[in-house]
């Protein structure tokens, strides 16, 4: 499932993005401070705000956001399952919305706030959604798990924001976090081990805990 279209949010994001681009263009250090070999027709610099921390990168223009995270920042919690938007293992949050990070080039994300699984919780202090996945055995091999958890967090937010899905029957009513709504919205995250029933229970638990 593609992330739902959020017209209000999109417009705001676009304006913020445009404004920051203009500001950035007027800051002289960006163009001059980098070694010339790292910036050219094939490479660019980009600054991502990853899990709250600004991270400057000089990278190949072809590098996906996914590979920037995994290969350059060594944040390997985000997984590469298919590398072309079919499995959901690479799901991360960008400016509050979930995306498939394999379908997005890193250089498109100047100044964007990226939240990965590493930004949600640590082994010592789990996010309630992470704890719910442990409590309900919402995984087996664990490879799709970070993507499932990032998607699940976003799904609950989308439902709270009353963003409709394919299975929403009444567009004027308040959307509930029902089994049907959660299953539909999670269907872009494949789990070949087949933990879907447990993941559903985990999301309900986290939903009750007001993540």
């Amino acid at each position, binding site marked *: 499932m593609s992330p739902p279209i959020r017209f209000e949010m999109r417009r705001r994001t676009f304006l913020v993005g445009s404004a920051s681009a203009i500001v950035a263009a007027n800051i002289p250090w960006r163009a001059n401070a980098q070694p010339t070999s790292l910036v050219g027709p094939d490479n660019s610099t980009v600054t991502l705000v990853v899990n709250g921390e600004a991270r400057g990168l000089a990278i190949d223009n072809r590098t996906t956001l996914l590979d920037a995270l995994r290969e350059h920042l060594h944040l390997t919690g985000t997984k590469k399952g298919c590398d072309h938007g079919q499995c959901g293992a690479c799901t991360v949050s960008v400016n509050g919305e979930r995306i498939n990070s394999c379908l997005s080039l890193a250089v498109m994300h100047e100044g964007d706030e990226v939240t990965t699984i590493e930004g949600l*919780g640590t082994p010592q202090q789990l996010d309630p959604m992470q704890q719910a996945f442990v409590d309900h055995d919402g995984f087996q091999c664990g490879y799709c798990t970070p993507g499932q958890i990032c998607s699940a967090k976003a799904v609950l937010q989308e439902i709270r924001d009353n963003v409709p899905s394919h299975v929403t029957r009444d567009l004027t009513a308040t959307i509930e976090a029902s089994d049907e709504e959660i299953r539909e919205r999670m269907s872009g995250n494949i789990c070949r*081990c087949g933990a879907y*029933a447990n993941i559903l229970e985990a999301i309900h638990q986290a939903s009750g805990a007001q993540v």
Partner: protein
Amino acid sequence: MDFNQPADQNLFDRATVVGKPHARVDGVLKVTGKAPYAYERHDVVAGQLYGYPVGAAIAKGRITGIDASAARSAPGVRGVVTTLEIEPLGIWDYNVARLFGGDVVEHYQQAIAVVVAESFEQARAAAALLEVSYDRDKVDVDLEAGWERVRGTGEPSTLVGDVDAAFQSAAVTLDEIYHTPSHTHAMMEPHASIVDWSDGDQMTVWTSSQMIEWNRQALATNFGIDPDRIRVESPFIGGGFGGKLWLRADAVLAAIGSRAVGAPVKMALPRPFMINNTTHRSATIQRIRLAADADGKLTAIDHEAASHTLPGGRGENATAQTPFFYAAANRRVIHHLVEMHLPEASDMRAPGETSGLMALEIAMDEMAEKLGMDPVEFRIRNDTQVNPSDPAIPFSERHYVECLREGANRFGWSDRNTTPGGRREGMWLIGHGVAGAYRGHLNLKSGARATLSNGRLVIETDMTDIGTGSYTILTQTAAETMGLPMGRVEVRLGNSAWPVSSGSGGQFGASSSTAGVYAACVALREKIGERLGLQNPEFRDGNVIGNGEVTPLSEIAGEFSAEDSMNFGEFQSKDYLMATFGAHFVEVGVHVATGETRVRRMLAVCDAGRILNPITARSQVIGGMVMGTGGALSEELAVDLEHGFFANHDLASYEVAVHADIPHQEVIFLDTLDNVATPLKSKGVGELGLCGVAAAIANAAYNATGIRVRQYPLTLDRMIDQLPEV
């Protein structure tokens, strides 16, 4: 330790840890993204380069030339090795096609080159610059045509009684043909390896493998080197389902690349490359004939099946269960291999029984209907407690009837729809189906090392955890045996430096490896007892107890280490037949206008010996039910008959089940004990969970509509022209 006779009462019958529901011990690592999978090991060796594979664009023939000059001079490229530059590599016992080397192409996307570059993007771009010319042979990859050639020929693998006479005198007979398509494992983590063979001497491999020792032996065979020069690590595996039993091109190409450029190389097989480059479950065509008397007792079973394989391979033996599952005095079983140059057919989760039961359990449903019997009762009437093809051999344990009765009771079978096409709710036709599950069980020798130091226990073994829960059940086993809390046990897996285990496959992993850890812990207990001068001490609550003294294990000075294996004796296969059993119950809705089938609820009852951890075992079974739902309704590798490859080689066009496809699922374990299997009295459950699921769905779809589909998957087009008027 030798296991040469059935287990007596032992500590596992008084267990306080084994058999209890413990959360996965590696769960926290997985939910925080900290579990290190093969491609992510930035920490293990410096200077890793990126490899990218190139596959053959023909199914069969020879490569006449490869021009790699553009690739070699592309930005960032450190080396290119083509298959024409390498002598054909050795082929290990269970691989069929050569993994690399030489000019012969045996299947589409067989690896023919590796490009090594400083970045992934550079390697990928350069790989697209190779110019390859071929001398292409025509291929015949039509299983239907092959079936017509082989059917009725050959020697049966099982032949009991007089099948033809039984059919002539039977009150009721059935004779139908069933089709199952090829399936791909589609595990979420692609095959991936980092290999450091920089100096051409020691080779270190960080990979994603179900079988560490087989991986090491296969690498040694491929490269003609001593296995002692190879170390393999695979602590976390992102799913396997049989696809990672065997060495594949990722490790081989990374090793060649590393050797060529003198630096460590990492490679993951690109998803669209995986399905044709690696292995799959072969399609099958199966003719099943059943004969019964008027009371519903089967008098004859005749099962003839065909599957495809590369020359010299194993295919998919869909008759695997037929000699054993149901009673009948007369029986003929034969499996034909049709050789062709599709990619390599090999093992996928419950190889044999998965495809076999997809057909046999529809046939049983059809036969029950012909007899006018409840399909649950029909199966119960044909139960057997002995090997029906060799009645002197009993099943070690068999509770199939209890599975059916318990399932029927819990599912509400008595309230099912009994008239096919007779129950409608709005636009949905509602149906109920049942199918039996059978999966043979075996154990493999399994070893481990147990080390106690300062009251903490470390278990080391080359066993793997492919999501099955090995870390957790081995921790439980060691804790139980040593009388320690689980928090004081650390289990280390997936390293060839440690004792060889069963590995993970064929649903032998859990029972074999827990027995191996038990053996190592018993050896450790003996060492500690000797040191303290105690005869048969007791290990309980963190203490060793004997001669009236209680000594905390944490107060024993020094380090104790013991290594042992569990060796399973011949009696298991000579005196008994070991297997696991189950029953699946399903409710579906079929849309009256479109023919779309939706699964509404699922229930499985399993008889698989002691359940070592009901949480992880249940996850295995519901996972099997999910895979079976895909197998019933959507999974099919589509064959390009002209060019000889699977056309839908990605996760958008090969459709596995997703969240929206899966309803509420219920699993019941009978928690039987099998003394013959291991000292823990457990058997496998991970493959059992898949067996029979698809047939239960197909039977429910028939019950909903009255339309019998004998060709998987049950897509809309196979029903829509026969649905009632809207």
